[in-house]
């Protein structure tokens, strides 16, 4: 695999991380990508290795090292460039780290967070439903009731990715008192705890290897040790930009992978490909500009200013749109060879679709931008 001409981040230590991730991606991950896609192989060892390389914790500060969201995004992009499904799982794990780190709950920090940050334990996120509920698109699927020392939660989340018997993930349940929803709690669900059942999901395009399960909770007990946030809404408001910014790593990576595929046939097919729209140099220029913009936004991942949030939402939408265009164009550039089921090019088309529809989807992003942009008038 050819390397990017431009370093993604500044410090030599960061470059080492990116270089190591790139090697892992171009080697073992590239070899496994087709199995992940078509045989549903879950790349657990790759995820552990990414943790060892420091690729899963760049966005969380450690003693002597500040948090660097730009580096976390760049690492996710390097993974997504080769395998979008694995890139998505990196995001699932990364954002679970944000929940734990920002929870302020000692039980979710300390050793637990350190194991998570280094990829020794693996985490995920079941926040699609709550995010859509807060945006007025869905209603809560998990329901909690107060009991001695905590809550009992019931309900089913239709699909949660990057799960396993020893994994855990963040989720939200509403709390009804006498049938009226009064509040919500955000908490960690441990897949091996009593009351948790993982159930098979239908097949997913491009995401078969992501260990995606339906999760049914039956009287699942949430104690103080599992609480991420209570109340939930201010917490979500605070981590919202970080949550969305991290996702841009998927779009940037899938787009870069597609551009790589265009270049790989340029010598043989350039004489006909020059008649296509969206040529690799144009797309690369647009991708580089967008990357620079995202790196700038990533310097203040916890911003809450309205214009900043609009910028973040738009950057995420742009990354999705660019991934769609690039993947589509890469298929046209490669022609029949890209259409083979074994080709990464057609796999990437499906990955780009996923980037565009995973919550928040392009349509959700635009709706939210319109809502935030609207002029407020008295009632």
């Amino acid at each position, binding site marked *: 695999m*050819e390397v990017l001409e431009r370093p993604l981040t500044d410090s030599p230590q960061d470059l080492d991380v990116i270089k190591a991730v790139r090697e892992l991606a171009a080697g073992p991950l590239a070899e496994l990508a087709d199995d992940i896609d078509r045989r549903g192989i879950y790349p657990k060892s790759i995820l552990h290795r990414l943790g060892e390389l420091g690729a899963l914790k760049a966005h969380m500060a450690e003693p002597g090292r500040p948090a660097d969201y730009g580096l976390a995004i760049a690492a996710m992009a390097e993974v997504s460039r080769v395998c979008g499904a694995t890139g998505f799982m990196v995001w699932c794990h990364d954002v679970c780290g944000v929940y734990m780190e920002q929870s302020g709950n000692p039980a979710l920090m300390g050793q637990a967070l350190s194991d998570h940050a280094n990829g020794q334990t693996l985490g995920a996120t079941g926040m699609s439903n709550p995010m859509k509920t807060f945006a007025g698109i869905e209603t809560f699927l998990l329901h909690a009731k107060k009991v001695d020392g905590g809550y009992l939660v019931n309900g089913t989340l239709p699909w949660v990715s990057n799960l396993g018997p020893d994994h855990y993930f963040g989720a939200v349940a509403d709390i009804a008192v006498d049938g009226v929803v009064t509040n919500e709690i955000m908490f960690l669900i441990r897949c091996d705890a009593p009351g948790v059942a993982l159930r098979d999901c239908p097949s997913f395009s491009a995401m078969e290897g992501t260990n995606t399960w339906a999760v049914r909770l039956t009287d699942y007990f949430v104690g103080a040790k599992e609480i991420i946030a209570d109340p939930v809404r201010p917490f979500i408001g605070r981590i919202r930009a970080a949550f969305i910014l991290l996702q841009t790593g998927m779009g940037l990576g899938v787009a870069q992978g597609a551009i790589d595929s265009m270049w790989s046939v340029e010598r043989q097919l*350039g004489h006909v490909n*020059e008649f296509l729209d969206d*040529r690799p140099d*144009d797309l690369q220029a647009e991708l580089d500009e967008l990357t620079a913009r995202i790196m700038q936004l990533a310097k203040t991942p916890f911003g809450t200013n309205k214009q900043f949030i*609009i910028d973040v939402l738009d950057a995420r939408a742009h990354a999705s749109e660019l991934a769609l265009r690039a993947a589509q164009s890469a298929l046209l550039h490669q022609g*029949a060879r890209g259409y083979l089921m074994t080709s990464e090019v057609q796999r990437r088309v499906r990955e780009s679709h996923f980037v565009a529809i995973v919550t928040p989807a392009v349509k959700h992003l635009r709706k939210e931008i319109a809502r935030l942009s609207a002029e407020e*008038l*008295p*009632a």
Partner: protein
Amino acid sequence: MKTTAAWLLFICKACGLIYDESKGDEDSGLAAGTRFADIPEDWACPLCGVTKADFEPYVEETVQRARRPVTGGDTVRAKRAAGTVIVGAGRAGWQMAQALRAQDATMPITLVTSCNGDVYDKPLLSVAMARGIALDKLPREKGAVAAQRLNIKLLAHTEAIRITPSSRQLRTSRGTLRYQHLVLAHGAQARSLPQFPSALCWRINHLQAYAKFCRALGEIKQRVAIVGAGLIGCELANDLALAGHSVTLMDVADRPLAATLQATQSQQLLDAWKALPLTFIGGAGVKQIQAAGLRGEKHITLEGGQTWVVDQIVLAMGLQTPNQLAASAGLAWNNGIDVDAETLATSVAGIHALGDCIAINGKVSRYIEPIGRQAKTVAATILSQARVPYASTRVPLRIKTSSLPFTV
């Protein structure tokens, strides 16, 4: 087996599979190190099944990514029919569309606006009540009808989010538009300050806000405070008072229209207003606005400590140009979008601007008359016609305080 020569690569002409002599192809029984020449003729490409004869030698070459090896690509690639995109459907936006369509019947034109796109005369908003113009009579033409008449695409209720000049794209809340020329005609907004929460104070700078304000007023006479006694504040105060509302007009200056009229003229205006339910409070700096009471009343607290209880508050402290869109494109800014005095071009190629959002040498002009001339100037540039240099001229200003109108 010769092992001294370098390993060679062969590419399948059908599917692009590369046979690497050093690796062989285990699946089809070719051990690592099998020379291509030694492969049986009936061997088939493991990927697509074509025969050995369909392979050719392949030499790995790194493609220089910065430049495509095939030349002439840029000239071959047809320019997309991106046309002109206009942001804003006030007078400036519609005049721009009109000026372009008058000269070019086929150019694709897209008008992007956060409002519904209806065509109306904004100056009427501050005199409509006294003239008895019903709300539904204010739009001269529905946006969709005007769009059809001019054969343009109208994207109503659409937010322009960001410009990426390098790829000539305008990102909006309804998708991304490519443009060959972009014209910013998005106007300005009512100025605000932190002590004026937007949920409590009206900012009436377009028809939709005015319509909502009128509906909030309803049929009952209300207590209305207008903050700012400039042109719009005085005209609105005059209009609302004539309609029977009890109006308190406030300004930090000690007389109305202090920036436009001489002291004696301000006094004449105050005298003319004596017959109306209109009180002017000079030297009034607003400290705080709060919602109070069950009927939606608002409390205005002045710096001096006095408190006023009103039903509605209207801000008329002047206009300011929103800068997000201009900033996203890196446009030069000088009190507004900095444009060339003669061509109205912005500092970035392919982007022009006119109307309330521009500033020429740091000066804004927020009047109606220049807009038509500005549109002709920009149209001439876009259509590569003979230049029509724009000239800033001072136009007489009519202050439509009907109790005592002024022309200055």
